[in-house]
């Protein structure tokens, strides 16, 4: 029998992998994809708990997380295009114009 702990363990593994990707990769788009991976693992936690507690609120929250992720994708990718136009690179190590 599958318990809620199984689902949450999978979500924990995916979240840790996303954290590792965000901290090690240099390509801004890959970092963005790792953030999406972390958001999805949180969504899995929400839906498994919502199903376990037989309560609808968690799934509504997942809906809003998806809306925010869509907005984040649009704005984030536009930022990357603007940065690429200035520096011809989307390496996060090149994002140092505010450094003194």
């Amino acid at each position, binding site marked *: 029998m599958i318990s809620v702990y199984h689902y949450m363990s999978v979500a924990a593994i995916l979240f840790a*992998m996303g954290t590792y990707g965000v901290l*090690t990769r240099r390509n801004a788009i890959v970092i963005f994809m790792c953030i999406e991976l972390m958001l999805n693992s949180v969504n899995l936690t929400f839906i498994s708990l919502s199903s376990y507690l037989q309560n609808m609120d968690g799934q509504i929250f997942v809906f*809003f997380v998806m809306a925010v992720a869509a907005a984040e994708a649009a704005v984030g990718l536009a930022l990357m295009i603007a940065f690429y136009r200035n520096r011809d690179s*989307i390496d996060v190590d090149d994002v140092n114009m505010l450094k003194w």
Partner: protein
Amino acid sequence: MEIILFYLVALVAVISGYLVIRCKSPVNSALGLVNTFFCLAIYYVMLHAPFMAAIQIMVYAGAIMVLILFVIMLLNLGTEARQRYTHGVVWSAIASLLVLVNVVYFLKRGRVTGAEGDITPFKIETLGHTELIGKTMFTEFLLPFEIASILLLVAIVGAVVLAKREV
């Protein structure tokens, strides 16, 4: 039988997640991420949330991933330069391991409790998941729904302003 499917999907999800963080080409990472999204959609179906599975495939695997792939191909990104071995990799491995250990510790020691509702799998079968979601969203969560629509409008305007050559 269901548990075999669960472990199979978990294996595929974790392997695709590994591909996302290790592939040198961003396109390969994006394809691994699509694979992970499909695995999570299978989990949502197993958790009696078919509407969420449909939304997951349409919004994440459809819209967001097409946007990401479009930008990767627009910028014509090659493979990432070989990663230097730095202290940063070690520290990030330690940090992500700490996250994992933390969660596993709380899963081991804690017990899942919360406000229990009355949405049983039987009710979802008879009434339909979409109807239940819609009823909750347009009565109890109406204000957050409206705020989300304003957020999407702001995101559209912001994306156009940022990506335009001259404002």
